[in-house]
């Protein structure tokens, strides 16, 4: 099994260039850059008029997503006047050991020029990543995020020599995916109950495990594992680590939902 070794010693099981808007106002430019280059991108509604803990937490969530080991390089797309200054965000991502390019819409002189600069940046970073040879993925470098407590599943995943990481309490499923990715999980196992549809995440494959037969029957295409078999979950995670796309990756789901700590000003 092969992975992508990062400068800090961690391993990615994907090798994404992430186009990250620092603010909702640059999400359209970020999306255009990603669509035209095949990079992954995040769409979100944040980055401006946060205060206090909510400001630090939001910036932390962006940095966490950008430094997930599945991300080999990042293009930060900024507007320019936002509260979470894109330039500073890019510097902090770089300080965390990540490759970063910065594009500012106001700096470049509008959307069109920013998109052109962003495309060039993605292409350069992509070429850099493609030059790096894959390396053998050690079992103890694998971190599987579990978005809901599940002892049996936890035990089965840990028995393979993988680290299993639990989501912080009090978060919704999609919010917990941001937290797990930020803490370094390369694969997220998402346990979905009655009434809960599967989710995806931009930089991590999400293995959607159904626990409710009716929900699985209704949304079978979007689930990876039917209710019942823990062994099958382990097999799906194994295949995902080896590069096989999850249902979330096949449909291109990138659901980014940020847990907020305070109201927007």
């Amino acid at each position, binding site marked *: 099994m092969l992975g992508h070794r990062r400068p800090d010693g961690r391993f990615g099981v994907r090798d994404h260039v992430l186009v990250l808007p620092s603010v*909702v*106002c640059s*999400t*359209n*430019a970020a999306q255009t850059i990603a669509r035209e280059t095949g990079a992954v991108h995040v*769409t*979100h*509604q944040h980055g*401006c*008029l*946060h*205060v*206090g803990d909510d*400001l630090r937490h939001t910036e932390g969530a962006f940095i966490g997503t950008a430094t997930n080991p599945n991300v080999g390089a990042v293009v930060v797309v900024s*507007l*320019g*006047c*936002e*509260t979470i*200054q894109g330039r500073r965000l890019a510097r902090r991502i770089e300080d965390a050991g990540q490759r970063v390019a910065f594009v500012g*819409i*106001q700096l470049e*002189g*509008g*959307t*069109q020029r920013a998109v052109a600069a962003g495309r060039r940046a993605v292409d350069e970073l992509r070429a850099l990543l493609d030059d790096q040879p894959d390396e053998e993925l050690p079992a103890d470098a694998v971190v599987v995020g579990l978005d809901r407590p599940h002892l049996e599943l936890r035990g089965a995943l840990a028995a393979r020599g993988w680290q299993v990481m639990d989501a912080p309490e009090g978060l*919704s*499923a*999609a919010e917990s995916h941001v937290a797990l990715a930020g803490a370094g999980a390369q694969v997220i196992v998402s346990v979905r109950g009655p*009434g809960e*549809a*599967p*989710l*995806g995440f931009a930089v991590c494959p999400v293995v959607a495990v159904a626990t409710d037969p009716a*929900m699985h029957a*209704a*949304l*079978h*295409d*979007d*689930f990876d594992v039917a209710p019942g078999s823990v062994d099958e979950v382990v097999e799906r995670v194994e295949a995902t680590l080896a590069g096989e796309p999850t*249902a979330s990756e096949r*449909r*291109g*789901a*990138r*659901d*980014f*939902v*940020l847990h*907020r*700590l*305070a*109201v*927007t*000003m």
Partner: protein
Amino acid sequence: MTLLTGYRRTNGTWGVRNHLLVLPARTAANRAAEEIADAVAGAVAVTHEWEGAPGDRDADLVARTLTGFATNPNVGAVLLIGIDDTDLELAGAIAARGQTVQLLAMAQHGGTAGTIAAGREIAARLAASIAEQEREPMPLSALAVGLECGGSDALSGITANPALGIASDRLVAAGATTMLSEVPELVGAEEILAARAINESVARRMVAVVHDFERSVEALGVDIRGAQPTPGNIEGGLTTIEEKSLGAAKKAGNAPLTGVIEFAAQPGPPGLYVMDTPGHDIEQMVGLVAGGCQVVAFTTGRGTPTGSAIAPCLKISTNTQIFERMAGDIDLDAGVIVTGEETLQSMGDRIHDALLEVAAGAPTCSERRGNREFAIRRTHY
């Protein structure tokens, strides 16, 4: 002068655009909604961060926002992408406001792929059906224009904002509705607006929304100065929130203040309103559009490409440098007031005319670029 035309809706409202909105009821439906709208001419989608978890205390606010957005008169029909029967409630709320809405539940199509396949057919049919409707002469009393500013600078309160105020006054005098918003950016200007209220109750409400906001910030125990003014505002020459507010309030001209309404709520009879929204450009724009604004006028000093999926957004720069630097993102330059090429009055008239031209069908920069930012406002944490 431009003859105002629009699409007459069966519920008595008038649209200035005729979109098919593909709306995800919850986050898990985002992908299907995006793909369906991409495949069908005349369809637009937004995506959002509302998971719809049971017991979420923001459920009513989000339902009002999504319902208001989906029933903006610029939307000719709605294809609501839901997960299962739970989403019938939202579909029902949209239908109750007289909107054509069809719920497509992913649970009946095996997931995203099947939903996209089925959704494309339904969307194509709905798009063809609304495309048959033609523009008719539209009364000005049916037009509501949002008054927004984003990325303000030291010229905002001198050029673009007062010029927009002149345009707003002309619209209100002719019987239209305009809506000022962003309560955090009215801190310090509340008494000026309250003095123009049509009655004592509106005046009290005007002062109350600003004071409530100030109290909520105190309760958070944070210093608002970290967020207001923003780093971009400060670089642009603004020093305090009060200074920013006095400039921001100028967008509302001198018309009497008819009412103060909640986020995403509908205004009453025509006139000038203040909507209780945050300063955040996109949460604010979504609130205004959910409240029925068919057009948004947006002044900017630092420059932004922002737009709405369903409402044309006419952007007006406060200075000529940013207008030239961000060619293709900004529609009008009010910086020429400083150089003397236009007066406040003549610029106000130009903005007024441009708003009517946009309402009559002229595309804005954000429509050409496809800017469709969207945000869900939350108040519980």
